[in-house]
């Protein structure tokens, strides 16, 4: 911090501290909604957010994905090697599941920039759970599964385990212990594909990020 910034800091904090004290109110009670059928709510809201949901199982999802992508003419699908999801796809492809060519996000963005910005057609990530109230996916990107994987490709495919649904963001933050665990570099809530309504309040998708979001919902016990 520069000297100027130091002076500014001292002056700003000085003024704030010299101001008359005021009591901070106690927080009034607030009961965020809960849902008897979280999955139904999630589905309804995610679809309202323009996401596409497909029910899959822990074993058949690579095959299902291959079928889903079959007619799309994707040039490639970027994955995160070293993650269970990424590795499962690599394995499936090796076993002959007809997936688009898999591209690993295995170098820094500087090395991959051109491919990421111009050439990758789809990216696949896992999720850290989801929020029923708003149909929202929770992603905590990691060293293996970088941030841009869910952002630059025009199609984002996210794998979501059915039993990781939370009623609300408030519940997820609390139950997953976000504050205590320490926040990651980047935590994301994603609710549908990229969109804008800046032109005459008309919805248009894919303005900067993905035009489409496919959620593979892994049903439990199947």
């Amino acid at each position: 911090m520069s000297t100027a910034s130091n002076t500014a800091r001292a002056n700003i904090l000085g003024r704030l501290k010299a101001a008359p004290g005021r009591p901070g109110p106690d927080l009034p009670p607030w009961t965020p909604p809960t849902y008897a059928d979280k999955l139904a709510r999630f589905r309804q809201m995610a679809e309202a957010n323009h996401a596409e949901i497909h029910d899959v199982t822990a074993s058949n999802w690579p095959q299902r994905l291959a079928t889903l992508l079959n007619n799309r003419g994707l040039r490639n699908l970027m994955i995160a090697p070293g993650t269970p999801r990424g590795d499962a796809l690599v394995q499936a492809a090796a076993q002959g599941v007809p997936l688009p060519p898999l591209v690993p996000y295995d170098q820094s963005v500087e090395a991959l920039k051109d491919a990421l910005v111009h050439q990758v057609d789809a990216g696949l990530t896992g999720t850290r759970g989801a929020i029923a109230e708003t149909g929202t996916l929770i992603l905590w990107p990691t060293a293996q599964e970088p941030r841009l994987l869910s952002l630059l490709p025009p199609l984002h495919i996210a794998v979501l385990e059915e039993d990781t649904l939370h009623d609300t963001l408030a519940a997820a933050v609390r139950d997953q212990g976000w504050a205590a665990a320490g926040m990651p570099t980047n935590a994301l809530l994603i609710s549908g594909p990229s969109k804008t309504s800046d032109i005459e309040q008309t919805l248009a998708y894919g303005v900067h990020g993905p035009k489409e979001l496919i959620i593979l919902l892994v049903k439990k016990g199947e």
Partner: protein
Amino acid sequence: MAADGGHHPEHAPRFAERAPDALNNPQLRRNFRRAMDGLMAKRAAQFPDPAYWAELRARGAAVKARALAKLPDLLERLETNLTANGVQVHWAETTEEANAIVLGILQQAGARTVIKGKSMVSEEMHLNAHLERHGITAVESDLGEYIIQLAGETPSHIVMPCIHKNKAEISDLFAEKIPDQPRTDDVDELTAAARRVLRERFANADAGISGVNFAVAETGTLVLIENEGNGRLSTTLPPLHIAVTGIEKVVEFLDDVPPLLALLTRSATGQPITTYVNMISGPRKAGEKDGPTAVHLVLLDAGRSRVYQDVELADTLRCIRCAACMNHCPVYTRVGGHTYNAIYPGPIGKILTPQLQGLDAAGDQPHASTLCNACAEVCPVKIPIPDLLVRLRREAVRPTETPATHLPVVKDGGAERSWKESLVWAGWRLVYTRPLLYRMVTRALAWGGNWVPASAPLMRDWTKARARPRFKPRTLHDLARERGYLNEVPK
């Protein structure tokens, strides 16, 4: 009773002088009416249950009020935790200082081009122009901001900056400014054109600049919300990220975010949540493959700590910039954002601008309101905007002092003082506090009030659009007596 305004020789045209331009532009009127009607309906649909709305909003207001009560402490905590996370924190008392800090960081990094996410604070700083003067190109990436940057305009709304423009105008603009772009009526095509251009800008940007919606002290986290993904790109793809924000954006706990977020997106655009909620707690860590390698936060005061001195006016700082107040404002709907000639238009602007810029520059703004309370009714953090408008009207004519500094509570307090107006109110007080005198005066008006010439100061403006009010031959005082209503006030 209009302020004489004679002591503002150099001032820009005032609100009342600017309004007719917008009012006489039917296309603009239609654009705004349509947009505001849509936004109001969408918001209403998000709060179907008045009891839950009341509960959520009470929580949101209290969260912000509590954060303000601890503001200096929370700012220090925020700084400590951000620094521990590897974010470099800077403080700026003025927008000039903030510009110098941002420029310094960019120059040190050798940055030539910058991609920007939407940030009203950067508008407040006039950051783009500042960078431009120093040879750095700043490109807006929010579609609405991009459009107005192409058009060389300023935002007319704090959430939807190009809401004043319709499709045809945008199509013409793109055709003129984007190479090989044909005119089109198709919003998807227009959007795709912007994507094409901006993708390259993102890829080549040396730095990204963004605002902040909430800064969480507890964890040292910057929360940014958006629908387009441009905010995520601006804060992820370039090697350097600089966030600029006002000091009032800090909240204490991560748990404070969910209620505020729920209020913000529902109030702003009638969405249960935005497409992206982007929580940034540090630069790229060792082993991570993307994200900026350096993250800076510039904390801007620019008058906010002065607003903070007055406990009543400090409610202004609760604002989460949802724009619901402008969406519901019958004045804003008719004149649009540019009439305010300020960064923040609408009701929030009418209370914020005079406090940040002073009553000399913006003392007329608090009067651009009927005090209809539509804003206060929808404000998700319960800012009593009409009461603050009245308070500022007061500060403009009869300023109060901050005890510690003996400065007027609001910059340029007393700027709208006018001896004519004071005299009118002194006379009014004299008459209206003396029952006998009052009855004499009202009887006199009953007898002769209708002879007041139509050219008399107030009558002239009133009768431009309305028939003159008619005094009745007998006052209610007279009629009540005649009809036998008691005047027996029990002791």
